[in-house]
């Protein structure tokens, strides 16, 4: 049905051209049109409009496109016949990719294909990859991550791609050293390898990679069983810049202390969650890798920061993450003394961070760009004044749950840090005065002021007026916000992509109507907004075509009408949370027609029958995760559940009692605060 209609359109365009032979568009040369196409990046719909101008535009657009992310598998044949020069294919949304499809892709795109992303797709096996290896000899990048059931054969197939440069095999748990060995031996140009979570990979495989792939720049061996045995080989890689070994419990101090040679090219090292690392190991690796810039020591609980005092020459370290480490004021002092060129510092959840420590850091590092003091509950306004007075070029500041800060302090942020782009003040005592002062930060891209119960429209309106670049706004449980504030945001922030207004009980359909102007909006969370109805959802669906994630839990007024609108317009919708809504079988079935839908949570849908649910489950082919009430488990045929599961969907059977009321946000916040005081 669909292609036929398109044919009608084409004919119509042709007729137009015949009637009006001197079409102004025809006079433009291909080069000019390609240049125009180069610039059409911001909104994918622009390119679509472009291609609908005329037949030649359509053709040009087809030739021009290099990147493609098909939303549904059934679109693939027609898309690939149209776009024959695709070089980068992202198939992550086509979850049920089979070998036959891969073989077709391989023969259609053959030499033009450079990069293919199969992450999370199911149903293909190594045979499909072998077809790719055979035909697409220019393939440089492949992502086969999150295929828990795929084994060494896939790796062996990848090993046949001689030009391969970037391989991501994260969480392919069945891949062993043999597979990695095949890649190492077969891909001499390898620059990036990620074997994160491949628990079968040991020292032998990693060592072979290090010996064979001398061009390697980035290596991720997180959550594998590697030990110190493979480190010498890795450190001898001449081009290694990024090395990630999160959660490698086999790595301990000896691994680095006994290391004869460090890596000069290494710039980023992530050894977070390496629980057996302690001071001496960290110190020796810092001494042996002189060009290290990024260092992540998050959750290395046995590392004491004060060891950094031993590093007089460590001037190149620019970014340190110490999340959850033992940090003291003296430790921070030695850190500030030794790391002169520090730009980014993360002290999230370090219980030892105090005003003294912060001011020591701030005194030395005036050009800090990023600072994360999330959950440092002992810092007060004194720290904030130290931060704001010295670090005026701060771009990112995250200080969620710094409960001792007062609104006076927040005013300082707005006054002194105009370059801020990312600000997280969740769960703080922010008031309108403070929020209003943040309007000075014209570059704000992301603003998180959830659980700030005291803010109202008076604070939010100036933000909307002066922060045009805002893309992300979190108003979770900001109960003082009403439609007026949201309308200011919608007017002033056209680039808004994500908004969270969960439990903002004063929000109504009006807000959603305003927000429908933000055409880039893709994530909308209005959980618990009781005044929102199907009207608002329909407007959003029609206005924000890119909507991919919608949370309308406990919006009791939302019914089938909203679902019909979503089914009609929101072809990008991947995730929806419907619990407690007034949706019936019809709405659910309409929604199930959305091929893009992958993740659905539907508890306590009073209007939905088991049969309707079963039908919806059968129709919705792309589903990967469904949360349902466990009462349905018995009423839906077992065979059907198994069938849906065989298509790659996982069921989460929840047993939650129907909740009539929910507590007020004040009570909720009080409860959450009581928890951490204990």
């Amino acid at each position, binding site marked *: *049905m*669909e292609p036929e209609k*398109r044919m009608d359109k084409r004919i119509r365009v042709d007729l137009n051209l015949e009637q009006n032979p001197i079409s102004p568009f025809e006079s433009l040369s291909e080069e000019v049109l390609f240049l125009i196409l180069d610039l059409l*990046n*911001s909104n994918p719909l622009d390119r*679509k409009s472009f291609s609908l101008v005329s037949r030649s535009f359509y053709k040009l657009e087809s030739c*021009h496109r*290099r*990147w*493609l*992310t*098909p*939303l*549904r*598998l059934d679109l693939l044949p*027609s898309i*690939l016949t149209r776009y024959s020069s695709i*070089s980068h294919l*992202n198939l992550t949304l086509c979850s*049920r990719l089979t*070998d*036959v*499809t891969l*073989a*077709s892709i391989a*023969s*259609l795109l053959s030499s033009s294909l450079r990069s293919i992303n199969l992450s999370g797709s199911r*149903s293909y*096996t*190594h045979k499909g990859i072998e077809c790719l290896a055979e035909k697409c000899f220019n393939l440089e990048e492949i992502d086969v991550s999150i295929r828990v059931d795929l*084994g060494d*054969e896939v790796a062996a197939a990848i090993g046949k791609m001689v030009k391969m440069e970037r391989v991501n095999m994260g969480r392919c748990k069945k891949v062993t*050293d*043999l597979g990695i*060995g*095949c890649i190492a*031996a*077969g891909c001499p140009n390898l620059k990036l390898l990620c074997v994160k979570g491949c628990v079968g990979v040991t020292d032998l*495989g990693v*060592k*072979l990679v290090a*010996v*064979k792939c001398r061009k390697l720049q980035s290596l991720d061996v997180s959550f594998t069983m590697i030990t110190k045995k493979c480190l010498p080989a890795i450190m001898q890689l001449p081009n290694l810049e990024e090395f990630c070994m999160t959660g490698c419990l086999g790595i301990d101090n000896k691994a680095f202390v006994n290391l004869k040679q460090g890596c000069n090219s290494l710039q980023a090292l992530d050894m977070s969650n390496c629980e057996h690392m302690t001071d001496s190991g960290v110190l020796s690796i810092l001494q042996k890798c002189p060009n290290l810039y990024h260092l992540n020591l998050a959750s290395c609980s046995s590392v004491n920061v004060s060891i950094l005092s031993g590093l007089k020459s460590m001037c190149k370290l620019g970014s340190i993450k110490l999340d959850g480490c033992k940090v003291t004021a003296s430790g921070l002092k030695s850190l500030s003394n030794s790391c002169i060129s520090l730009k980014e510092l993360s002290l999230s959840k370090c219980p030892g961070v105090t005003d003294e420590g912060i001011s020591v850091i701030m005194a030395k590092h005036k050009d800090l760009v990023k600072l994360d003091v999330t959950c440092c509950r002992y810092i007060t306004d004194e720290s904030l004044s130290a931060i704001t007075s010295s670090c005026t070029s701060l771009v990112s500041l995250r200080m969620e749950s710094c409960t001792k800060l007062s609104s006076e302090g927040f005013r300082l942020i707005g006054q002194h840090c105009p370059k801020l782009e990312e600000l997280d003040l969740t769960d703080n005592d922010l008031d309108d005065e403070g929020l209003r002062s943040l309007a000075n930060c014209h570059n704000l891209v992301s603003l998180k002021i959830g659980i700030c119960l005291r803010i109202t429209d008076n604070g939010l309106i100036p933000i909307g007026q002066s922060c045009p670049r805002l893309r992300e706004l979190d108003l979770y449980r900001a109960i003082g916000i009403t439609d007026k504030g949201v309308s200011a945001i919608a007017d002033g922030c056209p680039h808004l*992509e994500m908004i969270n207004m969960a439990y903002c009980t004063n929000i109504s359909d009006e807000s959603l109507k305003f927000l429908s102007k933000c055409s*880039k909006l893709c994530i909308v969370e209005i959980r618990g907004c009781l005044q929102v109805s199907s009207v608002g959802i329909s407007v959003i669906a029609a206005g924000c075509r890119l909507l*991919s994630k919608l949370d309308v839990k406990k919006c009791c007024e939302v019914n089938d009408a909203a679902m019909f609108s979503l089914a*009609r317009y929101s*072809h*990008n919708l991947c995730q929806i949370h419907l619990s407690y809504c007034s949706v019936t*079988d019809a709405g659910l*079935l*309409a929604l*199930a027609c959305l091929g893009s839908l992958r993740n659905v949570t539907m508890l306590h849908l009073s209007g939905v029958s088991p*049969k309707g649910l079963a039908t919806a489950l*059968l*129709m919705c*082919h792309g589903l990967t995760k469904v949360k349902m009430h466990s009462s349905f488990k018995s009423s839906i045929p077992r065979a*059907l559940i198994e*069938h849906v599961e065989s*298509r790659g969907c996982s069921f989460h059977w929840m047993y939650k009692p129907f909740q009539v009321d929910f507590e007020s946000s004040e009570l909720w916040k009080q409860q959450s605060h009581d928890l951490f005081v204990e």
Partner: protein
Amino acid sequence: MKQIIGEPGIDLSSDSKMDLKLTRNSESFHKPNSSNHNLNSFNQASQYFPNLSPTKFLSRAENLQQNLKTKSTNSFEPNLNSGMATQNPPLDWDPHAMLSNLSFLEQKIHEVQSLVQSIIDQQAEFSSRPSELATRQQLATADLTCTIIQLISTAGSLLPSIKNTLLSNNPALRQLVNPDFNNNLKCEGLIRNFPETARNSEYEDLLRNLDNEADWMKEPNPPPQSDIVDANPIDEHDLKESDDGDAEREHLPPGSYIVLQLEKEEILAPHTHFCVICGKGFKRDANLRMHMRGHGDEYKTPAALAKPSKEPGSDAHPVTRYSCPFVGCKRNKEHKKFQPLKTILCVKNHYKRSHCDKSYTCSRCHAKKFSVIADLKTHEKHCGRDKWQCSCGTTFSRKDKLFGHVALFQGHTPALPMDEVKASGSGQGNDDMTEDLGVYNGNFASEECLTSMDVKGIDESRAYFSPMNFDGFGALDEFGRGGFDLEDNPFAFIPSGFGQRSGDS
């Protein structure tokens, strides 16, 4: 008489020699497998010391036990045992016993005589094979030692009756009955004091041996017992025991051990029982025991014969090492850097492995050959399990070997085990994959086939729910066909910005 020889004799062996003995005890004789006869004698002995305190008694008893053990190996045991077993009976001199002892001695001396004679006869032959000569020499030495000891014991039995006359004239015999000396020292003293009995070189050798032995007793650190035990061909020894490692580690100074070299035929004979003294092999232990009798009377006792190899006190055997008869081999004693072999088993395995044809072929791979059947069995256990294979066809028994190989050569890749590939290939209709690909390659006319699974799923669902009736919503088929306005957005793209960069190739 009995008072001197009997009770006081025991007394002295338990009391005054304790200092001497304790060291030995504590150092090396905690062997759990002490033979039965020792326990028996311990039990017997314990009857004689009822008045000792328990702890003291224990140590004394241990000493005694040890003492008895030592004695037993020196063939004094029969006499002592007889003395003890009769609860100190009036020790009458038995001329019959004496006669039989003397006739045995005579016989023994004849044996040695004939042995020495044979050495003289075959002297020309021995000049070419000095080891053979050494073996014979060793035999003669052992026989003579045995004879002397027997002589002393015989004379000792005579002592009570001639006490007054003999003791007054002979200080050595006075020493013999002196409670301050143990049996070994008695021997030494006797021999020292009768130098005129034998003045040949062999006898001097014997003296030196006995001297060493006495020193050995006095030393706080006796020579490692394990060596002696190892020197014996113990049946329980693992047949596959390496013939290299141990001997290389021990670094015995040359000359501190006796080197035996067996003939090729002897090595290759299918023997399992070997003489610790001459190395001769036997098919049956009974044959060996009979052979051992020829080495001396000490091997005649039922105890010595019953446990020929487990006897910890068999210190009479000097440290013995073996030489490979293959001239030029490092294990051959002619070799400059000669490394002796420890046991006869080692000799056998070494000789077969190094100097014999490999006649046993693995029945599985038909490639590997072995000369020692045990090696073949070991190999066959693992043969076919070389699961680590390289693309070049070479197989490895260990993964790290394979990876070392792959790292070394360009173009080699690890090969996946075939069964694994097959197992995983049995996904969904993969056997038909190749045919399918041939049909579907290049044309998307098979569009339906691509989504055939989906269509099927829908059909199934329809069939499944055919009796269902959706009120006012019966047009289930419309959903199946995608009845909603899809043409509006035939190409939907994720908005992440990933797909939007273009122009670069």
